[in-house]
């Protein structure tokens, strides 16, 4: 049984590393956007379009990293579009976000048709666990460079929000548009840039899905990761570092279902497959009641206003 526990734990570790990266990028992008006082619910669209563009670019050029860049650019385009539309008077950013989600996925499905069948070159991973001599552990520690990029970005963002002029400006527009205006900051411009940059990150999350894990492109690829990641931002209370932990936690919980079946705990798999959602709900309920969570929310967000 100890062996089984170990197997499940290794699977959860592997799952956390393998599955978390798209959540990380989308959640970081959304954190940046929401910190500036705007919600972009359409990042699922950026994710799916990014996945398609990355796969297509990698297939056509033979360079997966060019695919990652192209995915980011496609996300930047969708984010900028969202940012521009929301700048117009009397526009509701939540409604636009939902429209952008359909637009992004629709665009991806339309142009992605010829790329379902071909095999595109994938991103390589860094084998960090070969020294362990345990094949399962070695596999779990096959880490994609984007995973580290995500963690680095989170640390950098967290630092920048506290210590740089740009970070403070983003936070100020998010907390009080009036103060920002009084300071002579263009609220619309800051939000536009934050939404576009957030879209860029979400697009890169999509590239991870199609070019690394699971490493295919088809219409069923995302299964709602982009939507979950937006929820993770609230769960992580708009903190980039906490967003990383939320993504890791979500990835690890997602590995529970298959891993338990692999060690012989075979009944109740529908329940275990729902583990990530159940655990997220429980933690949300526990944390939402606190005063701290209300304090962390940017004051200008249309859900908190």
């Amino acid at each position, binding site marked *: 049984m100890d062996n089984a526990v170990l197997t499940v734990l290794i699977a959860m570790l592997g799952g956390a590393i393998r599955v978390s990266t798209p959540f990380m990028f989308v959640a970081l992008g959304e954190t940046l956007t929401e910190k500036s006082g705007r919600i972009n619910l359409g990042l699922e669209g950026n994710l799916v379009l990014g996945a398609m563009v990355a796969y297509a670019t990698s297939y056509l050029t033979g360079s997966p990293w060019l695919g990652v860049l192209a995915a980011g650019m496609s996300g930047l385009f969708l984010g900028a579009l969202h940012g521009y539309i929301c700048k117009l008077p009397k526009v509701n950013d939540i409604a636009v976000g939902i429209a952008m989600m359909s637009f992004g996925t629709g665009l991806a499905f339309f142009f992605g048709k010829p790329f379902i069948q071909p095999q595109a070159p994938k991103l390589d991973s860094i084998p960090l666990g070969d020294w362990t001599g345990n094949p399962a552990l070695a596999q779990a520690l096959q880490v994609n460079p984007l995973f580290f990029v995500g963690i680095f970005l989170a640390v950098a963002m967290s630092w920048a929000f506290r210590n740089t002029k740009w970070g403070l400006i983003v936070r100020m527009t998010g907390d009080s548009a009036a103060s920002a205006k009084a300071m002579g900051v263009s609220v619309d411009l800051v939000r536009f840039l934050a939404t576009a940059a957030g879209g860029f990150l979400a697009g890169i999350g999509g590239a991870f899905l199609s070019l690394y894990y699971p490493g295919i492109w088809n219409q069923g690829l995302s299964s709602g990761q982009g939507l979950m990641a937006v929820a993770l931002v609230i769960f992580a209370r708009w903190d980039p570092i906490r967003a990383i932990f939320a993504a890791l936690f979500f990835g690890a919980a997602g590995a529970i279902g298959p891993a338990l079946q692999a060690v012989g705990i075979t009944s109740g*798999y529908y329940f275990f497959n729902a583990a990530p959602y159940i655990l997220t709900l429980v933690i949300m309920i526990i944390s939402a009641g606190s005063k701290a969570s209300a304090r962390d929310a940017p004051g200008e967000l249309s859900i908190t206003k």
Partner: protein
Amino acid sequence: MTFSSISRRSLLRVGAAGLAATALPFGFARAQTNVVLGIVYVGPKDDFGWNQAHAVSVASLKAVSGITVVEEENVPETDAVSKSMESMINLDGANLILATSFGYYSPFVVELAKKYPDVTFRHAAPLWNKDADPQNAGSYFPYLNQAHYVNGVAAGLSSPTGKIGFVAAKPIPSVLSNINSVLLGARSVNPNATVQVIFTGEWSLPVREAEATNALVDAGCDVITCHVDSPKVVIETAEGRGVKTCGHNASQAPLAPKGFITGAEYKWETIYKTYADAIAAGQTPPNFLVGGYNNDMLRNTPYGAGATPEAIKAADAAIEALKGGAPIYKGMLKDNAGNVVVDKDYDNYDPYLDGMNWLLEGVQGSIT
């Protein structure tokens, strides 16, 4: 439906009719009816899976003179499928409609069959009821578990450990029968072989399918096979982990150049050719068409690099036996809870097997 697409299609039809009219005096008077075959897919037709298997078969009919093929992909199992089928009938003149997804049947195919009694409707799951449903509707369904049995035979002799991993979508009878048949095939050549199954709970969930494949490989399985809509993720992930694979639905051989053994494939063209021939001759195609190796409705993918010479020999022998109608489920067999579930030899099409709700002893897994 936009105006422009209607007019374009109508124009094409008028053009085609005009051509046919001018051709008639010079050609021979044809007693045969031209077949316009309309086929609807639930997903993309190049998904390396269920839809591709249909599309490949239909593509082979396009070359046959007198058969026109009209296709539509990504049609959800909603009112949308009724619209697609009606547009094929009214705009393209389809006289044979093939609805290839389980959820298309009721109410969509049934209702349209009543509305268009001159059109032949056939649906790819054994759902047609001869007492309740229209006579111009019908069902066809090959028993893929026979080809999975062959997979099992080949896997049993290609696997060093005899541990086979199976990524399954949902615990419905056809999936369970594929799992059990892999086990019986493997046990026919290696009595110690086991099958470990992980259910993902959905027909298409790429991330969880990849996780399940990794979990099975981590648990020591060295051959991976599956029953999900698009096996691409499972086969590629397993190949990446350096284990062998058996395919499902369509040929996945190009996805696994190192480890592919063989795969269970539908041979839909046998069925579609039967239908087209009957309609061309002015007859009613069979309403209920099921089959397997004995009537040429299945095939196994050509052996890949993962198949050992003994495996190829044994699998070929198994195919010959199945063509002769050799039964797969031979008593006595217990399920993995210890109950006797197969007490005698069952014919491969015995209705008892259609209600399968057990996994045999030797399968590690549970249907709840």
